């Protein structure tokens, strides 16, 4: 079955904003949740297009579901794909780090 082409906005689901990722932004590393079907090349292209920056490298990992329990109910968190995007020297994503 032929897969439809993913647009940049389908690839980048959301930025992950936590204390840790905020610290990483100082090293030009930005963390995103990405489409599980996207590859490194597509992620690089999407970030460059959406945020108008140059990407140095992309690291991806699949986050495994973790078991969760709420009272008597047990379940699992969802599976998702994380990408750590490192930008080239001198670039910054202002939408996520406005004060740099």
């Amino acid at each position, binding site marked *: 079955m032929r897969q439809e082409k993913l647009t940049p906005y389908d690839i980048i689901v959301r930025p992950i904003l*936590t*204390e840790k*990722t905020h610290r990483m932004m100082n090293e030009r590393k930005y963390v995103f949740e990405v489409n599980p079907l996207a590859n490194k090349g597509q992620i690089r292209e999407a970030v460059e297009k959406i945020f108008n920056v140059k990407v140095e490298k992309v690291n991806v990992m699949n986050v495994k579901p973790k078991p969760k329990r709420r009272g008597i109910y047990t379940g699992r968190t969802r599976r998702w794909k994380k990408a750590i995007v490192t930008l080239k020297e001198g670039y910054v994503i202002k*939408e996520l*780090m406005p004060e*740099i």
Partner: protein
Amino acid sequence: MKRVEVEKDKNMTVVEYEFDPKEVEIAESRAARYLNDRIELPGFRKGRIPKSVWKVRLGQEFNEYVIDYLAQDALKEEKDLDNLLIRPVLVDGKVEGEKAFVKMEYHFEPEVKLPEPEGLELKAVRKDEVLDKYVERRLEDLREEHALVEPKEGQAEYGDMVKVRMIVSTEDGKILRDEEYEYVLVQDDDRPFVKDLVGKKKGDVVEFDREYEGKKFHYRVELLEVYSRTLHELDDEFAKMVGNEFETLEQLKEHLKEEGSGIYDREMREVLRDQALAWLVENTELDISKKTLERLVDSAIANLKEKGSYDAYVEKYGGEEKLREVLEGYYLEQFKEEFGIKALAEKEGIQIKDEDLEKEAEELSKLWGISPERAKVLVKSKEDIRRDLEWVLLKRRVLDSLIDKAKVVELSEEEYKKAMGGEEENEEKQQ
């Protein structure tokens, strides 16, 4: 911070402040601290969310917090804000790049132009005429009060006194009241325990139901006795019966005249004060900006909307436009009264001292039903009571000073009614 006065209209001044990057940064840190104290975000420990994250998450809303802090800084810089009429209004604020701009509106107490009291004419009803009527009415009341009461056979009539046993019970038969009463059957009283008793004889029973707050009550009124009432002739004998101190009817009339004279003086003084106040409000000019009144009306309308009574008021006055007009007129009148009185007090050197308040507290203690000492302590310790009393006394003294300067024209009751009614008609026409 740069401060520029951009507009001035009567009592209103608009000031624009420009903040440099350092000042903006400090305000941003304060805003971030404020948010950190109150809000938690997933992924961050409490209180550890950086300023930049707040900017990303809240966007323009974060700038509003920043503007609020900058507006506070601007207020701290202003020195002469003691005589503000309403709270400063933040009209505009924006963060542009590293700089920020804040625009504030200050509404001060307006300048007052007092009218000259020369030619002020107040109207009063002639005292002797009022007193004659008062004595006449009081004598009639006393005759009713001292009527000769004798048991009577036959039917009760209007003007008779009756003794009844009244039993009030609920729908399910529970007796709430079972008491004896004596009262006069007055002609215009339509209540069933008056009207229905006319024509009844001793021993007759009248029963009826009445409804209070949605509940039905049953009344059983048994006529125990009927008394005829004979009114005394107005003569010296009658005067002696009213009080041992009176030997003749003339003495009684003289006493009633004195009593009425005190009432007349007090009431006529109030009438003259009302007229003087109306004159003051009508003729005082205020240098007040239209914008000040608009701000007050806006806030009153917002208040009505919050309380849920806005629609009812709009309907009452036939549209918001009309309601705004009425509110504006109300505020203007209130300010003319307040600032007119204050300005006149200053001009005449009228002040309210502690001893004046104590004296008034003594008078009020009778009304409040407490000891004069307790009333004095209350007035001293309660700021709001003290302020209210100060205002009442100041207003009274200022109006009395106006009355002293005015020409008081004494009119007959008919002329007075015509003169005052005529003015009302004119006002209606103007409206």
